[in-house]
């Protein structure tokens, strides 16, 4: 028996993963949710047929979206995480004892329930006492926040479907307002490679640049995402991601990681020429 999961990464490109069995399939109010077991990538979660995470490579994404800002900001106490119902970001965040509170805003309660049941490797720390989960539209939640958070992590799905609102200027503007005067926002920034993704990437960069004084982009290699080349946004009111990197302080913490290092941190902000160009194309242009 041949059993494969395929995702159309573009109209003309497919990624297929051999599947042993399907662990879960269901429909929430927002999307279709599936969990599979595979020989190569372990368990993996898809939403509306799009790959969200696999047990084998999720560490790259979650380490890079969390430790980069944590190694820059000198004292993070209060964090807002938007999306991220799989719990991966929270798992990394709770390793920092100075964080006193994490608000997790996930629109789809069923994603959290499914992840707790089938993906314990990422959802394992959602019960941490510092975490409060709000089942709400992120755009709505943040409208009422002002001067409240040190760090906002936007772990969104793609800019179509339920995650659409999390790529808009009104959302990033509201994030700016919700952050304290030295706050940082980090976001899932799509891929620069395929045309449709690159356009989404440009739009997000344009919208962030218009809302934050410091806006830089960094990269990581995530095998199961389209093209494998993925970007993150680092937007900040005060701290520069490289000039304000607290390398020694972070290494003194002794947090064990498999992808992130403070050396990689520095390298991640050096982008291929074509990516630099497509980002520059939209800076200060409206």
């Amino acid at each position: 028996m041949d059993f494969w999961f395929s995702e159309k990464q573009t109209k003309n490109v497919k990624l297929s993963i051999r599947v042993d069995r399907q662990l879960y399939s269901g429909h929430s109010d927002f999307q279709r949710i599936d969990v599979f077991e595979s020989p190569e990538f372990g368990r993996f979660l898809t939403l509306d047929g799009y790959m969200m995470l696999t047990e084998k490579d999720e560490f790259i994404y979650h380490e890079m979206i969390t430790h980069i800002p944590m190694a820059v900001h000198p004292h993070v106490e209060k964090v807002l995480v938007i999306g991220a119902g799989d719990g991966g970001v929270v798992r990394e965040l709770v390793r920092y004892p100075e964080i006193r509170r994490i608000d997790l805003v996930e629109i789809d309660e069923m994603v959290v329930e499914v992840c707790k049941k089938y993906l314990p490797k990422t959802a394992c720390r959602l019960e941490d006492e510092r975490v409060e989960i709000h089942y709400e539209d992120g755009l709505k939640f943040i409208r009422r926040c002002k001067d409240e958070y040190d760090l906002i992590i936007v772990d969104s799905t793609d800019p179509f479907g339920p995650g659409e609102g999390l790529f808009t200027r009104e959302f990033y503007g509201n994030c700016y307002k919700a952050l304290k005067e030295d706050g940082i926002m980090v976001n899932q920034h799509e891929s620069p490679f395929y045309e449709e993704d690159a356009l989404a990437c440009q739009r997000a960069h344009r919208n962030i640049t218009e809302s934050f004084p410091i806006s830089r982009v960094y990269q990581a290699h995530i095998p199961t995402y389209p093209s494998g080349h993925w970007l993150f946004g680092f937007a900040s009111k005060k701290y520069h991601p490289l000039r304000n990197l607290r390398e020694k302080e972070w290494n003194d913490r002794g947090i064990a990681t498999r992808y992130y290092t403070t050396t990689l941190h520095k390298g991640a902000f050096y982008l291929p020429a074509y990516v630099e160009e497509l980002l520059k194309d939209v800076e200060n242009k409206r």
Partner: protein
Amino acid sequence: MGEISQENAPIYEALERLRKMRVVPFDVPGHKRGRGNPELARLLGEKCMSMDVNSMKPLDNLCHPVSVIRQAEELAAEAFKAANAFLMVGGTTSAVQAMALSVAKRGEKIILPRNVHRSVIGAMVLCGAVPVYVNPQCNDRLGIPLGMAVEDVKKAIEENPDAKAVLVNNPTYYGICSDIRTIAELAHQHGMYCLADEAHGTHFYFSDQLPISAMEAGADMAAVSMHKSGGSLTQSSLLLLGPNMSEGYVRQIINLTQTTSGSYLLLSSLDISRRNLALRGKETFEKVRSYAKYARAEINDIGGYYAFCRELINGDSVYDFDVTKLAVHTLDVGLAGIEVYDLLRDEYDIQIEFGDFGNFLAYLSIGDRKQDIERLVSALAEISRRFGKEKVDLMPQEYVDPQVAVSPQEAFYAEKETVELGDAPGRISGEFVMCYPPGIPILAPGERVTQEIREHIEYAREKGCTLTGAEDLEIRRLNVLKGV
């Protein structure tokens, strides 16, 4: 064919049958199911092109319907509880024209509120009818025209017993309804017809939680923009008749100006939309209502903005209010409605229906999604944070009775000369001036220009409103009647 019901869509079904017959076309349109225009077919899709066909026996004829179009019209009449319904392909403008042309001839009077759509006055240019304006009351805080007070209509009727009809907006662009039932009764008591411009009221027919529809209120004719809240294609519309109208005569009137090549894309869109509304309209508009209620509460919660609603109801000039119209007063944020309109589009990629001096209107309908409403609300919060200023006051707008010096038709065709706007007061206008949208005339052909009107035009231009109607696009000059 057997019994047909609201489950059917006769025009759509006939198009499907035609497709299966694989008829070889040696008739118009010349693109022959899209093959002759591959670029357009790529844009619109082959299916769309293959449905763009001409009247033929299996598809009936809009000018003289006897089969599937007739059935579709009968189903529409049933769905809207009208005696007759006509499928219209020239926009609601064509339905409004048919109403005016059906009831009034040259020199005959129609009683109507000043805040009518330009198409109403355009219709009077065509038929030569003379407008008798009723002052729509104005809400001073919001700066918007309201409905007609029954007493004012009564006075107009008594002063003009020879008038042929009374026209009512049901509702206005802002969602405001007059007491159309009482006005229809009054009109009938005096031997006049009651006409309704329901360009913004299609959904009234499919909810018991919304204001009364014109047909239910006893109006004789209603022009219904199916393409606005009803979900059909742009330019498709319905004209409804009450029991006292002659269907045959109205059809003759419609055929004076209507195309003889009615588009089957438009006709099938009317047919399918009618079916959808008849079967699911009630629950659909219940959803729209709940979205509007949510959006209004969230917008009012931001502070500064005032999304108004049923609290405006005063039993007379605001007899009822259409809660699906999301109109928001912006002056307390320090911004004009038109400025918020521009910011939403330029900064946030959100297109709303229109902005005037003090308000903007976001159109909610059958196709809205919760997440898009969140975007609108969040963008408004951001606009207030980034661009908000000290509260500004509205230029007080006294309602000035338009002085109808000559009929719109006479003025339109009279010899004219062009003068500086500053020199226009005292002269008789030969053209329209209006902000578009909402398309309500500031000045109509045949009206005397006053100092207040001049100031109003200049203020609108300064605030960035799109002024239309006149020959000079910037309205720095105006065409006025020569020698008077």
